[in-house]
């Protein structure tokens, strides 16, 4: 049975799963959950995902949610096909890839998602931007990306000299950051700019952007 992804085409977490499927040449079926209609909070959905978030996968009856575990599971299951090395097996290389994934989850995602929420999602829902919060988030993101600039001056990617899933994980929210006019976070830092261009010009990511639309 083909892998089923229950998600939303513009959801960053859904896009990460699709991105990895494309990198690994894993066929999938994306079933749209209508977030605007609150479908993700309905019992039929929360039965599988108690936190009412997108996405979750159904892999021939095996249900899994949270995008980072999903992509880890798919990377391990389909290790031999598609792009290699996204989750290394050598203990130290693996530890560095995990470090990169953790950096993304703790230093990038919360600040970027917060900025996007203030600039885009809140106004969309008729709420006003909290300027103080926005300023704080931007300051924090700047600090974090200054550290990225140092790391990426010493190595090609966040986990070492080869691309890993920790780099790919930045693509969905980073792209959204650019969409809301905040691309300067990347472009103003030469090493970060170089890295960002490499990650987002991958054919698999271009395919995600083209395909994951309503």
């Amino acid at each position, binding site marked *: 049975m083909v892998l089923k992804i229950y998600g939303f085409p513009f959801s960053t977490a859904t896009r990460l799963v699709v991105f990895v499927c494309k990198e690994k040449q894993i066929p999938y079926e994306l079933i749209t959950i209508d977030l605007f209609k609150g479908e993700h909070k309905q019992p039929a959905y929360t039965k599988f995902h108690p936190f009412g978030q997108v996405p979750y996968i159904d892999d021939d009856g095996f249900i*899994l949610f949270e995008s980072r575990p999903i992509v880890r599971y798919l990377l391990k299951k389909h290790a031999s096909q598609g792009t290699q090395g996204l989750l290394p097996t050598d*203990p130290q290389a*693996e530890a560095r890839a995990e470090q990169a994934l953790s950096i993304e*989850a703790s230093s990038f995602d919360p600040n970027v998602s917060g900025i996007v929420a203030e600039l885009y999602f809140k106004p969309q829902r008729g709420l006003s931007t909290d300027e103080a919060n926005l300023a704080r988030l931007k300051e924090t993101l700047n600090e974090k990306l200054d550290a990225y600039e140092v790391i990426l001056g010493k190595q090609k990617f966040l986990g070492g000299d080869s691309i890993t899933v920790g780099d790919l994980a930045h693509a969905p929210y980073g792209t959204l950051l650019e969409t809301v006019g905040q691309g300067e976070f990347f472009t103003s830092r030469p090493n970060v700019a170089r890295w960002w261009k490499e990650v987002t010009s991958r054919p698999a990511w271009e395919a995600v952007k083209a395909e994951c639309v309503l």
Partner: protein
Amino acid sequence: MVLKLHGVSFSTCTRTVAVVAKELNVPYELVNVDFAKGEHKSPAFTAVQPFGQVPYIDDDGFKLFESRAIARYLAKKYAGQGTKLIPTDPKEEAIFEQGVSIESSNFYPSAIGFGIEKVFKPMRGLTPDEARAEEHLKTLASKLDAYDVLLGKQKYVGGNEITLADLFHLSYGQLLVQAGQADLFESRPNVARWWKEISTRPSWLAVKDAA
């Protein structure tokens, strides 16, 4: 060479690594980082940890930061001793990963957010943002409702055995208890059962006040 844990004994993330080391019976040496003197922002420190945060480990020359990545590395390196903290069966491992991600995306942000307002700010003589604290509490309450459903179907957050996914909740959970919010756990039967189990483990009792 004994594992060196560069951190601060009462730091949440340092204690996370410490509890994992204890569960695995891995000896370590806590190398104190002097926060008061700004040591974590010094060139010598940021050369290893560019974000200027604690902890990092030095495992016979191999350096690693991000507490959850350190925990994984130790759990895999010492898989043959102490408590098994990461399952090896592919599907059990995936459910474990799901649990780790639940903690970092659904528990940690509001727990640390609340902790910053109601524990860290007062400690530093700053005024808490009560509105923000209230919002974090509301989010936590709704997330823990989902935890109660999950923990009604499986014994632990990462499956039916204790794993790193549970241990990752300890430092931040304790912060909530310290801030007078034990009721978040105690008012939900499955969560209460789980919290009591994990927070009374000898490994946690050994480090909960000092790594």
